[in-house]
């Protein structure tokens, strides 16, 4: 095992970790805002990937077109899901927690089925285009350009989320998260904030989906693995923490890459779940959580 190989693996883990982190950030944003876990989060990612794939196939215009279109689509999807389903689930008078779980879980199953119906079960991937089949070569290192681009865009997305959190809207999000009943006292419609929060969280996973589609296959079930990683990442990072999601995503990317290198590629998730269990046992609020 050469030093170059190890460095290569570490860097790839970093690039993958940034995508994991952004997927987790979208989930964490919604959870932190209103204590609702979106069990359809992986399917939102899947839809974003299909949207990127279809846009690519139809126009060939590349990621610079795919990003804004998919971000808008996912924002609208998230806000609509809040208005149409989550708001109703929140207003039931009995067993609210269970209803929330079943609603998003059911939505996820529906979306997977709908994708299966519309696109079939085949694995598809984006071919051609600016990012495909090229590598950034540094010394002896080969980093696929598509993954480098994904990592850079995910970092930019984190920066944008941070900026948004500093705006007046970001402050209203934070206030709603602190006391959802008190915001009405100052004329803030919490349903509006929640819908925008769902839009923002979904748009976030939309960015990750577009970038992921540049180098990863698309299929109706592609969201499941990433969603699982996202749940683990959010739990590690601390629910609702943006910085926690970033750090935990990077950690998981690294652990996964190194486990694959040191044990065996098919066991790459073992290390991640080992850490997850350890954190659950010894520090249940997450590594970086403040709860």
């Amino acid at each position: 095992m050469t030093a170059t190989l190890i460095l290569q693996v570490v860097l790839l883990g970093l690039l993958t970790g940034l995508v994991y982190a952004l997927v987790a950030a979208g989930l964490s944003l919604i959870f932190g805002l209103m204590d609702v876990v979106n069990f359809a989060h992986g399917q939102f990612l899947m839809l974003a990937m299909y949207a990127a794939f279809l846009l690519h196939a139809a126009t060939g215009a590349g990621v610079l077109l795919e990003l804004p279109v998919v971000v808008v689509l996912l924002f609208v999807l998230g806000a609509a899901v809040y208005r149409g389903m989550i708001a109703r689930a929140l207003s039931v008078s009995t067993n609210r927690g269970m209803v929330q779980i079943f609603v998003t879980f059911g939505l996820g199953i529906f979306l997977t089925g709908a994708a299966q119906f519309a696109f079939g079960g085949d694995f598809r991937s984006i071919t051609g285009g600016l990012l495909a089949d090229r590598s950034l070569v540094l010394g002896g290192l080969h980093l696929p350009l598509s993954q480098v681009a994904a990592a850079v865009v995910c970092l930019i997305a984190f920066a944008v989320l941070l900026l948004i959190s500093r705006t007046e809207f970001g402050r209203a999000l934070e206030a709603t998260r602190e006391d959802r009943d008190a915001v009405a006292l100052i004329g803030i419609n919490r349903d509006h904030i929640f819908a925008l929060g769902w839009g923002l969280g979904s748009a976030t996973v939309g960015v990750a989906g577009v970038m992921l589609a540049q180098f990863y296959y698309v299929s109706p079930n592609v969201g499941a693995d990433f969603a699982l990683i996202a749940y683990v990442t959010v739990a590690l990072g601390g629910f609702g923490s943006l910085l926690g999601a970033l750090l935990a995503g990077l950690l998981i990317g690294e652990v996964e890459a190194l486990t694959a290198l040191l044990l065996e590629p098919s066991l790459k998730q073992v290390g991640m779940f080992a850490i997850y269990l350890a954190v659950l046992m010894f520090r249940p609020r997450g590594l970086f959580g403040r709860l």
Partner: protein
Amino acid sequence: MLRLDGVTAAYRGLKALHGISLEVPDGAIVAVVGANGAGKSTLLKAIAGQVRAEGRVEFAGQRLDLLPGWRVARQGVVLVPEGRRLFPRLSVADNLRLGAYARRGDKDRFAPLELVYDLFPRLRERLAQRAETLSGGEQQMLAIGRALMTRPRLLMLDEPSQGLMPRLVDDILAAVVRIRDRGVTVLLVEQRLAEALSIADHAYVLQTGRVVLSGPAAEIAANAEVRRAYLGG
């Protein structure tokens, strides 16, 4: 002018208000007094749209009942609730700015800051501090300040003196008078009878969800029998 006509409110079928009617003229301080559990907080919450009420609530000719709470606040009828309900982990400055959030379009939306600092100079010294680190009195000042940032036309205060030292109570009540003098109508709920009546123009005495007496605050304050009968004092 705020006008209530036969307002009823219930918690799970148990009535807490039995047909309350009252009026708050523009520019007045109206006090609502009564023993613990009389329904004072419920009354304010019913006006603010925080608990469902039946009957008619009208402000400046507009119906408020049936509006959700956030819309009532945007009509200029703003409640400073018991327990203050600040955003504890946000800074004092952020809590104040959030009061103006609903008027994001206005260039001068932060103008009421000047009045807030004028009334409560201590808030200005604590702008960067988290709300939860303030003393009880300062939290009450911040709660009132945040409400003032919304530019209320009618400010409703639910026991602003609760848990405060006597000297601070006087400060808060003096601030209430100055707020009224700046053109904001005030509906004040208090358990401290003498202090509340001393600054109020009119008063209503509540007992188990009913108005049992109302009139000029001075008359009610003079009525010793009233105190014994309804206020346990």
